[in-house]
Structures are given as C-alpha cells and as structure tokens.
C-alpha cells in the first residue's frame, strides 16, 4: 500500500467532484491510499496573488505546513490551479529564508519546505504507469485531443514539468491505454478561465477556438487535467456553440476518467454522469 | 600476523625486497618501527592496536631508501599515506611492496595502488564523533576564549619538530620554516613563531593530511596540534565534498570548482 498526502482543493469538492471521484477510484485500483490533509484551506487561486503577496503565499504555506505536521513527504494536488499556487509558494519560500520566516509567523506554524508536490500526471507517472498495461480491460480506442491549459506547465522555471510550449506527458500516457492523441494546435492556449464568471462570452470565444480545432482534427474526446479547463470546455458548451454558431458535442474527460474507463472502472465511480456534455463511451 | 611474517620472509629470501618495514616490540613495552633485513628476523614482527605510528614516514627518509627496495606493513593509516604519497609523485608502484594488514592483523594482498585506493573507499576518512565534539566545543567558545586556548596550548611548543618528523606527508627536504630568504617564520620558540608555524603546518596539510594522528603521538608536550589538521579535514569534507585520499593528480587546494562557496566575499 502506497500512502500519499492528498490536497483536493475547493473545486474537487464542488463543481468538479467527478475529478476527485475518478482520482480516488484510480488510486484504489492501484492500491494507493490518498490521505487528505486535515483542516486544509483554500489555496487562494486565482484571486489572492493579484491582491496581496503575503496572503497568496500564506494560504498555500498553511496547507503545506499542515502536510508537514502530519508527517507527509509527498502530496498529490489534482487541480492545476492549486498545483500551480502550491508549487509557486514552495519555490518562493525555499529561495527566501526571511520570507519563509515571515510567512511561518503569519500562519503560526513552522514551514520547512520538505513536502514534494505532485500533480496528477506526475503521480501517475511515478506510481501507476509501470503497472498500467497489465490492468487494461477495455482499451480506450479513440482519437483524443489532450488539452493542458495554462497552469499545468507554466511557469516552467518553477514547475519544471514537461515541455512548456508543446507538452507531451498526457499524450504519452493515453497512448498506453490505447488512445490515439491527435496533433493539434491549442494544447496550451488559454481557455479564458478567469473570465468564466465575469465575461462568459469571452470564454465562449477562447474555448470555442480550442474545441473547434480539436473537432476539426478528428478528436472524439478532449482530455484535461484541470477543473477550470473542464468547466469552460464542458459547462460553457452552450456559450461555445453560440459563438461557433454550430453544435459541437465532443465530450471532455479528465485524464483519470479515461484511464479509469480503460481499467473497467464503472462510469458512476468515475462520475461520468456528472458532465454537461454527455459522455457516450 | 603469521601470513604477514611468512610473506615478509619470502620476500626477503627471494630478494624481492631488501628491507621490511614493520612494527616490533620496543624496550619500553611500546611498539616501535622495525627494519628487517634478514628473513630469520621476521618473527620479531608484531601487530596490535598499539601500533599507531605511521610507518609510511620512512618511505621518504634517505636512510631507509638507501637500504634498497622496501616492503611495508600497512594498516589503514599507512595505506592512506601511501596513496597520498603516490598522488604527490613521492613513491611509485614498482618501488614498494605493500603488506596490507587488517585491524586484526591479517594479511591483505594488494595487486597495485589502485587496489589499495579501492579498498580505502570502504573506510571513511572522517574525524570521529568524539573528536568532532571537541572541534565543536572549541568552535563554540568565544573568540577571546579560543585565542586564549590556543595561545596556552601552543605556549608549550618548543619547536622540536617531532610532529613534522613523524608526519608521512612532511617529506619536504627543506621545510618552509627553514627558508630564510625571506625568513617567513621566526626561528625561536616564542609565541609568534609557534603560532605562525602551526598555522602554516595546518595549511600545508589541508587536503593532504591522512588523519593518522602521528604528529600528536610524537609531540613530547602532548599538544593537540592534530585538531588543527582535523579542522581542515572536516572543512574540506563539508565545504568541498572532499572524500579522502585518491590517486588522482591534484589535491583539494590545487583544484577548484567555479561554484565553491563565497558567502564571506563581498
């Protein structure tokens, strides 16, 4: 039994519950125990770092400090925005001892910077990939457009994850379960996440271009690893369709859901029924 | 030890070597160095925990060199000194036969110096925990206390240079302390001369000292001068990742890394 700390973050307990469900279901299948960080709080994305530098560091620092307190050396953070904020905080505070002391003072907890932060892909690469082949019962034999979004790979100096301009990790992983990633152009284009509430029409335009290109290139499904991206590509589909003046019904799946399907995990356990655009696989 | 004696006798008999440098029992009940030139005499060789003198020191002494090719009984300290001397071009593989001995006196055969180097990798040349404690104790004193401590410690020194004579790495024909153009270090055994001598000795052994404590053993006044070289060894390990003696050319201070620490440089 592998034990990893788990920071779900707000989205995974609400609008993207199915992401959490599929992560947990997948981990169960591979005998990985996810231990939630007790008393966790919001990471501050996306507002805090535009408002108050100390606050934007203190919120993630408290989460990391709690993980340390609970003896965790490694945590998985599925939400790309949370992953980004936690990683930036770790990087910033590890490089500046004075600031780290100041933040520890604010959160009234020591923070040492010892916890390793993994996104879902990194967790899968580390613990799952090698055993994947043996467990496939239903290869996901479809063309997929892997969409990485902004937050998973940028800023590269800090995250050091994948090729920043042309990421490949999700594509490579999905090939292992029988999917055929298409070569497309919008892997890291912005979906308009920040405008999702304030200006949904902009989301329609930005996300619309993404969805259209995926369909134009023959993809049957889009695969994401970020609740924000998912919400925009899935929930905002009416806005997208009205921008595109057509009806596109390509489903948007989390990477964990695709892997789950290939492993024969039930659709309910993976939360596929929760999507706005029906998933017909 | 019997194997060592047997090998020594063979080597002498076959004239593969002219002299075997080893330990024997001295008249005062303490081991001393022995220079055995006849196979019949090998039985006087001993080895026990008290054999701490670093015999490698004799490899560069002219009086021993003139006896002819030597074999040397070599516990850990001697092996380290041999490798360091080899890296400084002071001995060559074909000029010497090494009779390695394990801590319990068993013969270890070494085909060549590289084999010794390999063997030594298993023994960290570290300042041991107790000594580290002493180093830390001194370091944690105030500046004034440290100054007083060492002034008092070195006040005992009367510059007999026994430390130098016992050190296998002090093989120079003309020590810097004897250079008189200019006279870097005052000859007399007074406070300044003693201070400068011991600073210089420690600096000259930085990255070369094999941590055998022969200098301390030899000091008639029991001065803890080995702690200066131990500090250097400790620093070398901490600052530069120095791992101990190797056959590689160049040493700690004749090489560098471009990212060596420099937090004290403005």
């Amino acid at each position, binding site marked *: 039994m592998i034990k990893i700390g788990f920071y779900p973050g707000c989205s995974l307990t609400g609008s993207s519950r199915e992401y959490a469900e599929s992560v947990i279901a997948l981990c169960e299948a591979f005998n990985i125990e996810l231990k939630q960080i007790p008393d966790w709080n919001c990471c501050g994305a996306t507002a805090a770092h535009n408002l108050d530098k100390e606050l934007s560091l203190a919120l993630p620092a408290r989460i990391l400090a709690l993980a340390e307190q609970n003896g965790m050396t490694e945590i998985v953070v599925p939400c790309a925005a949370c992953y980004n904020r936690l990683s930036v905080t770790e990087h910033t505070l590890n490089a500046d001892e004075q600031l780290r002391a100041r933040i520890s003072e604010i959160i009234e907890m020591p923070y040492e910077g010892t916890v390793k932060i993994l996104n879902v892909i990194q967790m899968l690469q580390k613990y799952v990939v090698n055993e994947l082949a043996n467990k496939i019962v239903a290869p996901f034999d479809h063309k997929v457009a892997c969409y990485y979004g902004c937050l998973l790979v940028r800023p590269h100096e800090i995250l050091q994850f994948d090729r920043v301009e042309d990421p490949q990790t999700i594509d490579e992983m999905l090939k292992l379960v029988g999917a055929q990633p298409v070569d497309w152009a919008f892997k890291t284009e912005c979906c308009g996440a920040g405008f999702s509430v304030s200006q949904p029409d902009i989301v329609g335009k930005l996300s619309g271009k993404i969805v259209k290109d995926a369909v134009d290139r023959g993809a049957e499904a889009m695969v994401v690893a970020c609740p924000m991206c998912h919400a925009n590509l899935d929930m905002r589909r009416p806005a997208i369709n009205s921008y595109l003046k057509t009806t596109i019904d390509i489903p948007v799946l989390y990477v964990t859901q695709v892997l789950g399907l290939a492993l024969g995990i039930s659709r309910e356990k993976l939360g596929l029924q929760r999507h706005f655009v029906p998933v017909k696989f | 030890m019997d194997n060592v004696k047997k090998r020594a006798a063979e080597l002498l008999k076959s004239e593969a070597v002219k002299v075997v440098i080893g330990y024997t029992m001295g008249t005062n009940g303490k081991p001393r160095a022995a220079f055995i030139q006849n196979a019949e005499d090998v039985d006087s060789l001993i080895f026990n925990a008290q054999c701490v003198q670093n015999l490698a020191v004799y490899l560069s002494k002219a009086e021993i060199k003139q006896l002819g090719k030597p074999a040397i009984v070599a516990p850990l300290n001697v092996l380290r000194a041999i490798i360091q001397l080899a890296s400084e071009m*002071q001995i060559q593989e074909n000029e010497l036969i090494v009779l390695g001995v394990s801590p319990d006196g068993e013969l270890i055969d070494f085909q060549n110096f590289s084999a010794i180097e390999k063997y030594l990798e298993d023994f960290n040349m570290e300042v041991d925990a107790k000594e580290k404690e002493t180093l830390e104790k001194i370091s944690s004193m105030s500046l004034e206390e440290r100054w007083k401590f060492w002034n008092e410690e070195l006040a005992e020194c009367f510059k007999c240079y026994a430390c130098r004579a016992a050190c296998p790495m002090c093989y*120079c024909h003309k020590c810097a302390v004897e250079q008189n153009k200019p006279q870097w270090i005052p000859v007399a055994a007074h406070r300044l001369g003693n201070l400068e001598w011991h600073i210089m000795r420690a600096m000259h052994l930085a990255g070369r000292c094999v941590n055998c404590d022969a200098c301390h053993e030899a000091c008639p006044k029991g001065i803890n001068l080995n702690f200066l070289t131990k500090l250097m060894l400790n620093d070398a390990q901490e600052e530069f990742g120095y791992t101990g003696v190797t056959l590689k*050319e160049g040493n700690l201070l004749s090489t560098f890394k471009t990212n060596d620490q420099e937090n004290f440089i403005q």
Partner: protein
Amino acid sequence: MSRIGVFVCHCGENISATVDVEKVAQAAAGFDDVVHSVDYKYMCSDPGQTLIKQAIKEHNLTGVVVAACSPRMHEPTFRKACAEAGLNGYMCEMTNLREHCSWVHDRTEETTEKAIDLVRMLVEKVKNNKPLEPILVPITKTALVIGGGIAGIQTSLDIANCGHKVILVEKEPSIGGHMSQLSETFPTLDCSQCILTPRMVEVAQHPNIELITYAELDSLEGYIGNFKAKIRKKAKSVDHSVCTGCGDCWGKCPSKKIPSEFNAGLGSRTAIYVPFPQAVPNKPVIDKSNCNYYQKGKCKICEKFCKPGAIRFDQEDEIVEAEVGAVVVTTGFDVVKPEFFPEYGYGKYKDVITGLQFERLASASGPTLGEIRRPSDEKVPEKVVFIACAGSRDPAKGINYCSKICCMYTAKHAMLYQHKVHTGKSFVFYMDIRAAGKNYDEFVRRAIEEDKVNYIRGRVSTVYEKDGKLIVKGADTLMNGEPIEIEADMVVLASAGISNPGSEELAQKLHVSYDRYKFFAEAHPKLKPVETNTAGIFLAGACQAPKDIPETVGMASGAASKVAALFSQPELKREPLIAVVNRQMPPVFSSCVGCFLCETACPYNAIGREEIKDRNGNVIKTLARVNEGLCQGCGTCVAFCRTKSIDIQGFSNEQMYSEVMALLND
C-alpha cells in the same frame, strides 16, 4: 649594498595639491639606502626623465622608485628611461601617489604620511629586485588555421601573402563554410559564391598554404611560437592524387537519398560525393556511414566506374604532425536544432524552415535552382512569414544574446522573396531592428519601403498547420498588442546562431577559455578581441560570437596581422615576469620535492617536469620546471608551493615580504 634613488612627481598639481611632495622627498631621503631623493613637476616629461637618467649615472643608483601615477600607466616609460641610463629596467618600481592617494584623499597630514609610507614600501621592495632580461623564444613561422570558412580563408590568405606558411584544416570535404551556402549577401545583394569561390581557389593554389580537408585537430601541445599539432586526416576512401574529379563515381552511386548538408537538408546527395559543384578541392570522399559497401559489405560500384582507379576502400584515418608557431581558430557557428522550437513546429511541418534553408531555396545553385518553392509540395508560396529572434534574446530558451546577423538577413530574405515572387506577401515579426552598419539601415528601409515587406513588431507565440496553411499567431505590439493571425504558406525562422557542437572539446584541446554559450572567449572584450587567453592562439569569425561577413573578414585580417606581427620577429621577446623553480648546489639541486601539485594549480599548463640525471643517465630527482613560453606570471603556483621553491620574478617572495614588512613599520 643598494643605492636607491627616489623621484617624487607633482603631476602638475594633481599630486602636489593634496600631498606635500617636498616633505615626501625629504622623508624618503632619510630611508636606509636611499642616496638621492628629489621632487619634480612632471617626472614623465622629457626633462623629468632626464633628471632620473642623470641621477642614475651621478649617484650610481642600483634601484629607482618613481612616486607618481599608476604603474599601469607609466611603468614602461620609466623602466625604459632607466634602461637608457644603463640601469636594468626591472630595477625600477613605481608607487601610485596619484590614483591611490592624492586624488582620493583631502590635503591633510595623513595624506602626506600615507604617501611617505607608500614610498617606503616600494623602496624596500626595489632593494630586492633583480635585473631581468626579456625572455627570447624561437618562433616556428607556420600558422595553423582551424576551419575553412570565410574567416579561415581570409586569415590563411593574409598570412600566406605575408610570406609565411599556413596549414589550413577543414573538417568538411570542402572549404567554403556557411558563406558558400548563402544566396546573396546584404547589404549589396551580390552573389555569395561569386565573391567567395575565387578566394577558395586562391587558397588551393597558394604556394604558402597547405590545405588539409576532411580533417580535424587531434591535439595541440606546446606554447607560443612552438606548438606541436596532431591533425587527424579522416579517411576519404579516395586517393586524391589519382582522382581527376570527373564525377563518374557520384553519378553512379546508388545511395542517392542522403540529405545534403550543403543544402541544409533540402536536397540530397550520394554516398560518394563532393558537397557542391564549386567545392575546393573538387574531388569526392566516401561518407562511410551511408555507403552500401561500408554498411552492408556489397556494392563497390564507384570503384568499377572509376577510370583512374582512385577508390581506396581500405584507407584509414591518418594522424599527421605539424610544428606551428601560431594557431588561429576560425571554426564558425551553427544554428539551433528543430527540437528547440516545438511551438513553431520546426521539424514537424515541412514548410517551417530555417534562414539557412531559405538561403538554399534562394540560391541559383540550390535544390530549386533559385526559385522560391516550398519544400512540402514545391508550390510557390504566396504568403511567407519571417520570424526574427527565433531563439535569440530569449532567456527562457537559455539564449540571452542577440544573434546579430538575423535582422539583416531576414530583411534580405524578405526582399529576395519579393523580388522573385512579385505577387507574394511577406511579413516579418521582429523585436527590434538592429541594423547598425554601413548601408545597413538603408537596406532594411528599402525592404520595408520599396519592396513592401510588412514589418510587425511583436513575437510569434505559435505556428500550427490547418487546412494546408501554416497559422502564425502573434501580436502587434505597436497596435496595443493586438493579436494577429496570418495564414502563411511558408514560415522562415531566423534561428539563433549557436556555437559549433565540438567547440567545447576543441577549446579544451587548445586550452583556451570559452563563455557560457561555448563560444570562444577573447582575451579582452575591447582591446584584445582576436587574442585568446593563451598566447599564440587567436580567434576570428563566428566562433567567438555570431557576426556577419564584413566583420568576420575584418577580424580574420586582424588575427592574420597579429600572427604576421609575431612572425616578423626573429625571436619572441616576452616580459620576464614569470615563475622560476629555484636551483641549488648538488646533491640538493632544488628545494622542490616534485609533488607537482603546482602542475594542477597552473591555469596554463606551464609547469612541466625536469629530470636530473647522474653521469650514467640515472634519474636522481624530478623537479618542476616552468615553461617560459607558456607561463603568464600569475603566481598561483608561488602561493601554492609549500617549500617556497617556485618564485615569480618581479613579485618574488622577498620583494613582497619586504614590501609588507615596510608598510607598517613606524
């Protein structure tokens, strides 16, 4: 017993305004062994120097201290003056009363006191100075030039025309380098090959130049004037002394699909090949890695068709040795590789090409015979986007520098395109236009104004293919960052110029330094741009940093003149401020014990070994020995030597010790 003269300079009022120079001279007169001490308005003037010369003769001085300005300025002046009066120049020292005293302090008693201290310290030092003579080193008057591009060609011709021998080594089968690949050259648009090939031929025919192609430097030992080079001649598998260059072999070679290096991968060549029709020498080599015979053991068609019988399948690499007095490195540059631009799709989309590939498309000798046709379907592109700074000035990509030539060649490319495709539209995305140079900015203006090239100030974020078009997404920063999308038929990347792949290894062979980008480092960024830190090794062209043809040629001639200057002397005269290992009477010979730790400490590999032998030839002792040609006099070995056996002339242990002991002696 020393007889020292002290000469205190007023430097007009520069020194005397804050330092009581008379008092300094008087105080100095009272120092031990000072027999003469005066002050004077301008010591460096003719009368000032005469004052010193006369004093040397009158007072029989054995040492001189000039208390004036920085020795970095006038030390040579006063050393020369002393020498003219018969006193060895190295018996003269300067102390810096101006930059280090009068200019940085107010007129107080302390300032004058400090000046007196400074004089005393140099008086003590000079007492320990020793007369020195310049070191004479013989010179082998042959230069080795590494790299046969335009830099190497120009350097070789210039040196050879001075009457000296040159060995020019080129790793490819032909000389010519990148310049031979270019179509036309800015800012005049004259044909690159037309101006280059005559020089290539001149190199081949010059009686003073030995051209060795398909060869690389194996090792270099020695020092200025006296290098020994080993050159590896790669097996050509063709005997060039027999080959007539008729071309029958490459016409018949069945391996025809090998990407041509000369055409930057846009055309193909055979396994036995000359890189291009004007190659020098115009005789083929066999590329073993692509040859059927070498790879599969069967073929030998070329051998069958070779009438003179020049094919030699059993030829092996050969090492030749050469003695040379100077080396000029002219190895040029490279451009970044496809994996550098995943966002621009280079390597993924056939019609995204580099500037060098565009040169081949535009060249009359290229794969399209000079017509601009895109690689994927050979159609004439109607819309072409040029992306400047593709990789350059991009810290995120690890290249912070400007590649310097791209602004100009991009303007040229766009212009050539417009000249050849009149209906075409061209766009240039740029960060800044850097067109400093004679007629350069005018050239860029011409592209914009006459040839109607659309210049867009902004960067391109991504290029992707859609419906047979390349979609170029960028922003126009002069239009408030307005996003722009252009549907192009072809995209040309002004890829960053980078150092050649083997440059680090070569630098290590030559013992010269290189920068973080692995370009060779000049000895001084302004005053020694063609020298390296190793005496006798020079640089020219883009191996030092990206540069254009005129600059390269200028630098090449500069390096050649340095070599010619070196070779113009019968022997090399060097400052004797170098390290020496002491020698003593036998049986000691030297206090050096031969630990050779100095050998690893020396930045110049200047420390060698000297064996002292008895009459029967047995080695008694091995000592360190400083190579006078290599030692640059840093003195690192001196501070390092435990036995004080190695010392540096001019800054010797005795000198520095005396100086320190005198400084505070009050």
